[in-house]
């Protein structure tokens, strides 16, 4: 008799745990994603479930701590510099959902960095024409000067007119070279570099041979709750104070 009572209590306990989890998951899904960080309990619940997903799906590129890899152009998710958007949960969730250049019709796929040392720098845009080796060097000097590094001033001046002129760099990176996070065009004058150390060689590789990093779309692979948990986990690693002692 006692055994039956214990078994029944255990079953009830398990059912209660599942019910509580289900309730929290429903709250998580129905809430405005950008308001979720204010709900410490829900955030803790989501982050706890998002971490294993991150390790399984994202850590292979971004690393277990989400620090990225500049050698491979994988962005650091733990800093406060966002290539797309401003780091809001809804923006992170959109990237997780649809990816970047993932071939998903809703992917963030606005631009690529053209390969200016190739006959057709951007196959999708015939208006972009190649640059000469000297013009690429001038652009590099201009960018180094804007980053307050050592640069050839005469070449930098030529590079400045190229940047704002027929090279067309301003079109994505904006006229002040500070980028445009709405389309994923990086800031070229801040201290954060996506590829390599931001030196001459890395800049040459980017300008001459182009960049088009990609992030897969997970919408068909992870359920809606998982996607939100993953987004909140990424939010939590870039906002270390969001959950005290979370990591």
């Amino acid at each position: 008799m006692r055994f039956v009572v214990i078994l029944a209590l255990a079953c009830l306990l398990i059912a209660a745990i599942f019910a509580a989890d289900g309730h929290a998951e429903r709250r998580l899904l129905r809430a405005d994603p950008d308001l979720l960080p204010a709900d410490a309990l829900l955030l803790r619940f989501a982050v706890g479930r998002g971490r294993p997903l991150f390790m399984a799906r994202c850590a292979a590129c971004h690393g277990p701590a989400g620090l990225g890899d500049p050698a491979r152009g994988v962005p650091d998710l733990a800093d406060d510099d966002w290539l797309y958007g401003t780091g809001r949960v809804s923006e992170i969730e959109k990237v997780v959902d649809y990816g970047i250049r993932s071939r998903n019709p809703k992917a963030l796929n606005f631009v690529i960095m053209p390969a200016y040392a190739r006959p057709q720098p951007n196959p999708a845009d015939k208006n972009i024409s190649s640059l000469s080796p000297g013009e690429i060097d001038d652009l590099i000097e201009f960018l180094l000067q804007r980053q307050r590094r050592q640069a050839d001033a005469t070449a930098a001046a030529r590079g400045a007119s190229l940047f704002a002129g027929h090279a067309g760099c301003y079109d994505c990176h904006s006229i002040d070279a500070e980028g445009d996070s709405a389309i994923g065009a990086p800031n070229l004058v801040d201290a954060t570099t996506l590829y390599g150390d931001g030196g001459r060689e890395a800049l040459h590789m980017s300008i001459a041979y182009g960049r088009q990093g990609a992030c897969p779309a997970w919408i068909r692979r992870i359920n809606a709750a998982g996607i939100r948990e993953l987004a909140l986990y990424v939010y939590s690693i870039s906002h270390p104070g969001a959950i005290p002692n979370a990591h």
Partner: protein
Amino acid sequence: MFIPSHTPVRFQMPIDKNPEHSSRPQPGSWRDLSHISNARSFVLMSAGVLTGLILAGYSLFTARSTSTLIVPAEDVALVNQQPLSRADFLALLQTLYGVDLSHASPEQRHKVLDDMIREELFVQRGKELDVASTDPDVRSALVNAVELEIAQNAITAQPSEAALRQFYQTHQDRYVSEGVMRVRDLVFPASALSELPAEPGALKSAIADPQTLARLDGRDSGKTRGEEFYFAAKIHLGDALFAAARDLSNGMSSRPIQLADGIHVLDMQENKRPIPFGFAAARSQVLSDYRNRAIDQLKSSGESFLRKRANVLVADDLR
């Protein structure tokens, strides 16, 4: 008032002593449950079969999918049981009004939801009408969507570094820098051919001397513009001159090359030949190419599968 508590009542029950007239079934008849009856078994089986057939027929012709009255938390509505995703709802709110859920007015929410419901209804009606059979845009969108679905595994899979290195080694010729050259193209009239030195060293000296150039009426063709990538030099010089220029080392000059517009001599000032990229430098391109190949393979096998299971009849005249 007196109520008798025990009123004896006697009923006269007729008892038929004759078993011939009793309602008890005759031993051995189909109503006698204590014995097996073939007739009874057959009747019951027939009734069962008939009931089953009626139920199956009714279900078959009135079948509907199971329905629910609860909208899942990840959706904003169910239209004929087809879910409308909350993620799409939020994205539309942002696109149409530039607001998130908490800042959207009830009117904005209703408008977006209503638009989504309308779209879903039309999509469902489109399926019923089989618009894909006539509309090329719908057909194209369906082909793209199915190809994407087939390619999902390759898109989301992260290949191992060993697999990428092997791919890089197999296709190393793809991962090279663009060559750069600075070359002068001198052109002479056809009559100067006999006067141009045949020996490369002497020819180099001759074209370096402005007086000799003037005497032979030689001039820079102006086709090249300083330092150029190979592809640009090829466009400017043309195939024949570029083929000769590509093999020249720094400081060398070509033999005289006769073309329709005169005799050309190429003076190579600097030739930086294409350099293979190391794996680290080429990795992002290798990953992209590796994925593209995997996607192509998946698409191809998906198409084979579809062809294998399809029943395709081709008209006699096209067989």
